[in-house]
């Protein structure tokens, strides 16, 4: 709790920075998960970003679309290794990203997930960007010890990203509180805020706040 408060105060202090670029929008996503066998599953995700507000310019409403496919190998009930590829369409251009993922989910006493991701982003006429990400997230049922069907839950995640582009090192921090509803063990919908504080090291920080709506479906 103390840690969460420190993070919140840090973000408040940042948002009062006079030169900060502040943008807000909507970010709907669809996550489809297909279990191929007991060890391997595929995650297909499509996400759009739509701008609503910017304190600098009048942005186009449509910003980008991401489509990604990750193949995940279940090492045990807690640990998963993933390899994937993301394609981003933005301003008529395509960006390519390779993704490597390692995640551990702890079920006792509460469900907590740790995720470490490395990714490499490539686009025409641009230097590649290399990122290292760590995310911790938890899912807490609102009416009981475990999440049952047709129940609400609270999810919060905090992610730290280090990135290297053209010899410059930068850091982003994300904080995402969500309210979710579980229709079944395989079907969940979440709505919440995706706060992103970007470029924190070089003195020109950006703040993005997205209203995110996520649908997760497994089959």
């Amino acid at each position: 709790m103390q840690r969460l408060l420190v993070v919140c105060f840090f973000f408040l202090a940042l948002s009062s920075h006079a030169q900060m670029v502040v943008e807000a929008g909507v970010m709907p996503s669809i996550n489809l998960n297909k279990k191929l066998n007991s060890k391997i599953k595929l995650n297909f995700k499509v996400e759009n970003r739509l701008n609503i507000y910017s304190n600098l310019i009048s942005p186009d409403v449509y910003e980008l679309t991401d489509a990604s496919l990750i193949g995940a190998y279940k090492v045990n009930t807690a640990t998963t290794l993933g390899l994937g590829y993301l394609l981003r369409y933005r301003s008529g251009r395509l960006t390519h990203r390779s993704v490597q993922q390692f995640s551990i989910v702890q079920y006792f006493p509460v469900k907590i997930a740790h995720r470490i991701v490395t990714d490499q982003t490539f686009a025409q006429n641009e230097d590649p960007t290399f990122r290292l990400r760590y995310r911790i997230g938890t899912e807490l049922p609102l009416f009981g010890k475990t999440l049952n069907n047709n129940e609400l839950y609270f999810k919060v995640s905090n992610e730290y990203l280090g990135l290297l582009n053209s010899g410059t090192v930068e850091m982003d921090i994300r904080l995402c509180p969500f309210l979710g509803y579980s229709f079944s063990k395989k079907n969940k919908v979440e709505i919440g805020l995706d706060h992103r504080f970007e470029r924190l090291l070089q003195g020109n920080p950006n703040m993005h706040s997205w209203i995110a709506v996520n649908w997760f479906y497994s089959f």
Partner: protein
Amino acid sequence: MKTLVLFLLLCPALCISQVKVEKESRIKTDEVPDKAIKFVKTVGFDKKIKWYREESADSVSIEGKTKYNKQKYSVEFDTLGTIQDIEIKIQWTDLPEVVQHAVDSCLSHNFKTYQVKKIQEQFSGSHNQMSKFPETTDGLTIKYEIVISGKSNGEIEWFECTFDQNGLWEKSRRIIYSNSDNLEY
């Protein structure tokens, strides 16, 4: 060696066709039967008790959860408030050594690999016997409920296995948790 052979003979191949289906929801104290409230007062729990209604495939029960003497307690009643059992969360090293050996032999025999995730020591008996808990556990039936992640038939899954006070296997149920895709992607 003889002990190991004995354990393996007494530990049949776990029949795990049953799936643990439980739905629990938080309830207020005024929804708890008076008999159950009286019982927890006689035991002398001094911390707040959180109450839940648990529905399984064949029964409904009321469960109170609290901390007592720095341990996590679950007290289960039927819907009339009659005590069913008391469970205390313990560590592997809290198990008697003979139970550790028996459980390990049984699980190693049935799972290629396994990891113990949670252990609860379960006490059950008549109302009179249970009302003397925790001062005395004389006459109470002791069982161990152990949640593991185990690999059998090439698949790694969650199981809840129940062992008696000697560490002999009684039953096992497969646990299906809500998936964690929304935390991983």
